[in-house]
């Protein structure tokens, strides 16, 4: 766990090292992600695979922006499995992994946000 999950190199490039803008993006991510994760969670409870597919699709670029490479494959698989309605037995595990890592990533980003302000 010593290595950070998040990597803001992409974002820094995008905002041209504008800290205020970077902070805005991070804040946005911190606000949107829990909602999305909650949506996926709820959708899974009702086995709403379509919602899971759509939400994970939306979440995917967000995770990329924050450089969370570790979740790239996970989110891709969730979206794919939900879309195809296959390997659904693996979904709880994948969603759990997604939630755990996102929580860690958000904690890191909160720290980054503090250092930016």
């Amino acid at each position, binding site marked *: 766990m010593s290595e950070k999950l998040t990597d803001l190199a*992409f974002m820094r490039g995008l905002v041209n*090292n504008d800290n205020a803008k970077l902070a805005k993006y991070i804040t946005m*991510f911190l606000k*949107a992600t829990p909602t999305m994760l909650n949506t996926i969670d709820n959708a899974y409870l009702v086995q709403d695979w379509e919602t899971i597919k*759509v939400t994970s699709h*939306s979440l995917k*670029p967000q995770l*990329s922006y924050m450089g969370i490479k570790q979740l790239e494959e996970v989110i891709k698989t969730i979206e794919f499995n939900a879309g195809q309605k296959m390997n659904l037995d693996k979904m709880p595990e994948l969603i759990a992994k997604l939630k755990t890592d996102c929580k860690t990533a958000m904690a890191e980003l909160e720290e980054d946000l503090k250092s930016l302000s």
Partner: protein
Amino acid sequence: MILLITIDKIPDNNYLFAKFTPSKIMMNRVRYIFTLLFVCCLYNISIAVETDTLTAAILSHYENIRSLYDLNEVSVKNRKLSIDEARTVSEHQLELAQNSDNKKALGDALDNMGLFYLRFNKPGKSLEYLTNSYMTRKGLNDQKGMGVAFANIGYAYYKMGNDDKALEYLKASSKILNSERFDAGMAVVNDFMGQVYFDMKDYQNAENYFNQSQNIYHLLNKSQQEERLKTIANLVAMKLNSGGITESPSVENNKDTLRKNPRNSGASDVKHKVTELLNDSKGIDQLGSIKIQNLSEEEIKAKIKRDSLELEELKRDHALNDMNLTHEEDSIKDAQRDQQMEVLQGKISSANQALLQKQLQLSKVAQQKVWFLGGAAIIFLLTLFFYNRYRLKKKAFVQLEHAHDELKATRDKLLEAEQFKDQFLANMSHEIRTPMNAIIGASNLVLNTKLDEVQMKYMRAVKQSSANLLVIINDILDLSKIKSGKLEFEYIPFHTKEVIEGVITTLHFKAEEKGLTLTSTFAAYVPLTIVGDQVRLSQVLLNLVSNAIKFTSKGGVSIDCKLKGMKDNKAEIEFSVTDSGIGIPEDKFDKIFESFSQVGVETTRLYGGTGLGLTISRQLVSLQGGTINVKSKLGEGTTFTATIPYEVYSGLGMEEEQHQSRELGGDKVKNIRILIAEDNEMNQMVVVDTLEGLIEGVQIDIAENGKIAVDKLQQKEYDLILMDVQMPVMNGYEASQYIREQLPPPLNKMKIMAMTASATKPEVDKCFSSGMDDYISKPFDPDDLLKKIIALINK
């Protein structure tokens, strides 16, 4: 002083010293030694002169003292001196006389010594001196002296009891002194003769001689002596009478004398009286008479006898002294002599003091001389020692310097050789490369002609081998350039992506030949234009990629370019080359970067190569301030990652880079109106930020879903729609389809670009089938986006 100056003159200049020949050094040393000795000699001479002067002064003092003694021989004989004084003075006088040439003084001195011993009843000892005195005077033909000496000798024999011998000498003396008309001497001699005869009991002769002596004293007007002898003569006459001898006329006189002296008035023994008179009143001292009281009767008798003898002796001595006094200086009175004596004694003591002082001074000078000589010797030795030390030190220093120079020369030679080697390699490589190009060119020409299958095969082999050889030569050339530090890097702007594309273009056929895929990814926001050496970057990547292809038999090779971060205004760009090849054992990670080394001998045999590729790659990367790393798993594949810092073009950072991009095409699409259909707030923002940075005066509207987008499209004019695929209410496909099918022209011709998070083939196909014009994957590369927008607008 001279010494110091001389030492100062020793050259301290290293260069000069190094040039000194041994003979020169020797000459110099000899010169210094002589200078030193010369200084010592000068000082010695001056001391010697001073010493001589002093010695002369002291000698002259001795002379003075001696002459003083010569003048005062008389006073030495003076009876008023104590026994010790008399002995000291006599001995001193003799010593001085013996050291001088004055024979007469020597005779006198010997006489004095003789008389001194006579006086103290040592006639034997006395006789030695007196005989010497006679011999000395005989040598001088001093008749008078000889006569005196005989008289004294005679008296000495008398004292020894040898009356015959005494008479013999006294008669001889009488004869000489008579012929010399030395009356005072004659008086004493007659007195002596009288005593001898008296001792021999020949009273007749005794009276005669005493009378003669008395007569001479009378003539010489010496009344005291005359009176004494007159009494003696009278007494002798009385003795003569009592012994049957006829009375002489002088008896009456004697009686008178006896009457005058009440002490002797009752004396009947004539001989006793005579002896007493002869001994004179001064003969017995008080001390002697006191001593007698403590002695036994026997001893007292003996003592009395001895004392009487001494008295007699002193008496005679007295007479003898009188004779000597008369002999030296008749006219000088006793009192005057005493006075003179005192003065002279004072002079002698002061002279002695002066002498002592001079001696002290002389010894001081001598001491100084010793000190100086010792000091000079020590200084000389010290100088020699330090000079030698200095010389040795210099010598050691010169030797050390020499050794240092030799080492330096050897090192220079080695460096030169190394340089020569590299130069040789560089030259040779260059010279071989020129014909090599000709061979390759000609091979290509031949291959373009009509060839049968076998010929074609051979020619391809020729071409391939030549190409391989060229690679090796180029590697060697590069390595020698790097080693000799002659490799210079260009510093010009170039497109990062073009380099990767160039590498793929060059090697994709090679990959295809082996049935491998060769792909590349170019991460977003890697600066498009960077400043540096494009050729060297290509070289590194070509090396890594061709290596990867070489060691991979299935799967593929990919080049991934990423922005690692910004550091000191430089973009650290990471180029990774990943293969699915044989892999490298972990313990060989370091070795593979060494010159001419591969993972193993096996590797070389199977795959060929010089083992220079990675060495050169690493050198090139590190010379540009970067690093190269390897990660590998045996049998699974290897990833080489080169990270190189590049300055972003124009040095103004990413914005300028984007501006650069705009210049490349941004102008063509400025002020365009874009509708973004995107439900995700964050994605909206990213797109807006990107577009605003890329296109000047761009107008952007946002629709949260496909439905809104369709509505907006009908209300306002747009040049382009960026359509997210995944949206609520109406997704991208549905919206696109609706626009194409349901909206009237020209709206149905609206340019639509899909933005998709998963650019998989089915999805891309779906985009196109729904009527979209192009697609871009999220997160997108700004440059790609711009390119695609331009292409689409200008379609």
